[in-house]
């Protein structure tokens, strides 16, 4: 057994990702360049978001030898004004795979900062050039590193490190990688454009290999509320996850070594005096509330062993058998195993049971999951066929499966807490779209939070019509967690919903100049493929999308109606302006009058108001 385990360990995470780089989007020079851009830009935006700094992102792509044909090495540099990374973390953050701070359940563009390291890895394999990182956390001193990644050991190799005085805080990462800009250029420009649209609080500049600059200035100065990290929802929890959560809720019986004893003495405030067993227990009782779990366990054991610290030093706990209420220990002095009974009525017994068998089902549910109260927990236990006080640690494998199944099926859990989500918000979305499209009509909606399989999500959508939109037909911009989705448009659920709408019913006939911006925020976007470019048609998401689009389409139809009326009024006024003077002329001659009648009054009355 152990030899197999060792073999597995021999493949470092770096090596694993190196071997499977296709999965992470680094298959071809074209795709790799695009993916690298995305990873670094998204990391920069995430870093700023987390610290609530209005982002300023500068992206540049330069060919090492401009005259060479593609694919060829490019230097990709992304600079942000984020918090920077502390000097001691820089080598690990950029020279190790699976190092990052983006853990926990909340919405972020990327997870774990994995992609950026992949990009660095890819650059290193294709060009054998180090990554250059410049980081300043205080806006005064910048640490400048040149790093290589030791793939086999998954460790950074620092080639250069120096410090420099700077005037701006932030991080700048520069890698050299094999890419094909002639093919990836359009997508990258599209990506930058669309990212700017969904990040109106950011200023983004892109300098391309031909020295062309694309600048998207900041449209709004307020940032959306940052998401909070929260506990998971019971839906969508599988057996494996329950196991991992159980481990968190269960504790080993601490080893009673000198350090441990010292800690217990200190926490009980007994550092100087050597007290009797009874005195210790009395002291523990008064201090119980403030004691740590470890210390409580030791005190509980002592209560059954009826020993002071000196005696305790001479034994080793062998087994705590909660079921049979027996406590077994090895006595070094007598060199034999001894057993004492535990009184199941004692509060200390419960403490030990808690430790070794984990929490009761109700405690597990209320403490480990979001939005589960004691009443719901008890109801659930009944539903699942467990006693509420059943301890997780005593569950067999089959029982765990039963528990997991019941968690999916129980109907009375509250909907997931959306506070872990960070939608853009109606106002920023509206302002962004207004700036980008300057349309004749614009409407946005943010639906209230909903959930699929225990993952909360929010749909935001905007619709713009006419004005500077010169596309014929409907253009859909899809976003998931503020990332533009550019590939695999056809199979996406958003497209499906848009195409299912009969636009002529909403007075948008033919090929209306229409832009739809759809943003789905979730702690987990149900992507269809590993490429993460299209969202699967989960029923709950489809419904929210449909309701959003119908709401917006209705508003559009009201606008189109009004506009139709205004146009008709204008047309009418034009007709009057053309014909009434003629009627005036003819009737003047017919009636033999000298002067034409004053028909201006009619025309003025019929002129449509200009500020419509």
């Amino acid at each position, binding site marked *: 057994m152990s030899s197999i385990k060792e073999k597995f360990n021999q493949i470092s995470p770096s090596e694993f990702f190196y071997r499977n780089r296709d999965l992470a989007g680094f298959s071809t020079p074209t795709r790799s360049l695009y993916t690298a851009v995305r990873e670094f830009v998204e990391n920069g935006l995430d870093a700023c978001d987390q610290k609530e700094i209005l982002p300023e992102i500068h992206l540049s792509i330069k060919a090492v030898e401009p005259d060479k044909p593609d694919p060829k090495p490019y230097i990709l540099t992304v600079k942000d004004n984020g918090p920077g990374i502390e000097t001691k973390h820089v080598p690990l953050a950029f020279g190790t795979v699976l190092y990052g701070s983006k853990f926990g359940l909340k919405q972020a563009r990327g997870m774990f900062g994995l992609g950026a390291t992949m990009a660095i890895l890819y650059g290193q394999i294709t060009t054998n050039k180090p990554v250059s990182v410049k980081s300043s956390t205080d806006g005064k001193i910048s640490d400048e590193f040149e790093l290589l990644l030791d793939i086999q050991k998954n460790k950074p190799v620092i080639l250069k490190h120096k410090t420099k005085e700077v005037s701006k805080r932030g991080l700048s990462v520069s890698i050299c990688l094999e890419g094909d800009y002639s093919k990836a250029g359009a997508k990258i420009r599209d990506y930058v454009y669309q990212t700017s649209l969904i990040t109106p609080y950011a200023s983004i500049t892109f300098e391309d290999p031909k020295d062309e600059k694309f600048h998207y200035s900041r449209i709004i100065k307020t940032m959306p509320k940052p998401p909070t990290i929260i506990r998971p929802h019971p839906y969508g929890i599988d057996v494996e996850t329950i196991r991992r959560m159980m481990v968190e809720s269960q504790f080993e019986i601490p080893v009673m070594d000198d350090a441990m004893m010292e800690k217990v003495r200190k926490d009980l405030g007994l550092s100087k005096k050597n007290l009797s067993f009874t005195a210790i227990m009395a002291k523990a009782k008064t201090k119980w509330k403030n004691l740590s779990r470890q210390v409580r366990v030791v005190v509980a054991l002592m209560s059954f062993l009826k020993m002071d610290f000196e005696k305790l030093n001479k034994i080793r706990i062998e087994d705590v058998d909660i079921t049979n209420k027996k406590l077994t220990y090895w006595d070094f002095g007598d060199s034999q195993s001894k057993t004492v009974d535990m009184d199941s009525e004692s509060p200390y017994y419960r403490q030990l049971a808690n430790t070794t068998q984990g929490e009761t089902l109700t405690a597990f549910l209320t403490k480990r999951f979001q939005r589960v109260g004691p009443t719901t927990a008890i109801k659930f236990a009944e539903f699942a066929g467990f006693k509420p006080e059943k301890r997780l640690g005593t569950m067999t494998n089959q029982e765990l499966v039963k528990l997991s199944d019941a968690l999916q099926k129980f109907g009375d859990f509250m909907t997931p807490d959306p506070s872990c989500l960070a939608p853009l918000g109606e106002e920023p979305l509206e302002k962004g779209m207004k700036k980008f499209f300057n349309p004749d009509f614009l409407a946005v909606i943010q639906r209230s939070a909903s959930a699929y399989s225990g993952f909360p999500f929010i749909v935001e959508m905007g619709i713009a019509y006419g004005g500077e939109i010169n596309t014929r037909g409907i253009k859909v911009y899809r976003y998931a967690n503020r990332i533009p989705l550019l590939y695999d448009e056809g199979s996406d659920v958003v497209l499906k919903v848009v195409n299912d709408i009969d636009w002529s019913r909403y007075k948008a006939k033919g090929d209306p100049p229409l832009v739809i911006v759809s943003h789905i925020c979730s702690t987990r976007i149900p992507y269809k493929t590993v490429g993460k470019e299209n969202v699967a048609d989960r029923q709950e998401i489809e419904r929210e999308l449909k309701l959003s689009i119908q709401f917006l389409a209705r508003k559009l139809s009201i606008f189109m109606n009004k506009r139709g009326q205004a146009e008709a009024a204008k*047309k*009418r006024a034009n*007709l*009057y302006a*053309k*014909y*009434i003077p*003629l*009627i*005036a002329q*003819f*009737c*003047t*001659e*017919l*009636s*033999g*009058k000298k002067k034409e*009648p*004053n*028909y201006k*009054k*009619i025309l003025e*009355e019929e002129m449509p108001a200009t500020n419509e």
Partner: protein
Amino acid sequence: MSKETQNKINAAKKKATEKQKNILEMLKSHGAKIYDDLDSGKFPKFSIPSRSVGNIVYDKKLRQYILGNSVAVRSSRNTSQLRSFTQLMWLAFFANKLTNEKKSSTLRDIYYSSQAFAIEFEDQSESDNIIVDLEAVTSKPREDFHIFPEERSSIFGDLTIEYTIPGYEGKTMNLSNHPDGYSIGPSLTTAELVDTSAEIVIAIEKGGLFTRFVEEQIDKKFKSIIINTGGQAPRSTRTLLKRLHDEMKLPVIVLTDGDVYGEHIAMVIKSGSANAAHLRELTVPDAKWVGVWATDIEKYKLPTIPMTESDIKRCYDLQKDPRYQDGIWKKELDVFLRLKRKAELEAFSKYGLTNITDKYLPQKLELAKSL
């Protein structure tokens, strides 16, 4: 010229001037009303008898189709009517000019004249329609406004007329001077009828027979005025027929092909058409259709041709017409339907070119007296 004739001419002149004055007055009052509306900030409007099928009714007393009581309002506020409103105003303005200057114009002229203004008609049928509107509003035929259809109808016989059109005023003419006949155009329609020795008017459907009748001197033999209606008689011809009947006290007989269309040509002369239900003064209720009847086909053993489907359909349509419910109209229609065959006027040529004038016509003239 006898004094009596001179008096008659003067009276006629006065009458013509009077008529013109009336027309101009009427147009002026219509114009003034619209002028006042505009001047007081109102969208001008007027009402017009509805010419929809539902509003065309047969008046037994008048013995013609007339428009019922239903009235449509044309408003310049209504943008779907604004264009035709303006067109009608232009037409009134144009007709006013024509009448004033005593100039005449054709339907085609109207269509083109409009293009000089911003009031273009899309096609002639649109302009023709507006002309009918003007007729309906004023209850006057377009000829009163000096608007005439293309000429295809002609007249021959001893009839003296005096022109009233500019440049020819007072000039007289006898309509038996030219053997091809005279076209019935604006100058003739507006002319005063001065004198005639004729005792009857024979309206004949076809140009060929008209020529034959002139050659055979039917005008002299039967003291008649011969008129070629050229198929369905134009309005101007019908007006002239009426005037010959009313002013010269001449009976009118109609001779057509022996088919359902011929029968109806006679009927329109007698009692008008649904198309012109908005107009009176176009009918000769005493006109008589003398042939060719369906019964004549059998009686005279005329060579026939079979009726077409549309002929038969026309028979059935006319059976529903209130005017075909009795007398020879009903009888002949029924026989046509029974025979399902028809005969042209020329069919008499089988028995010799002059058979129709020598034999048939005298018999029919004799018969007409008893009709």
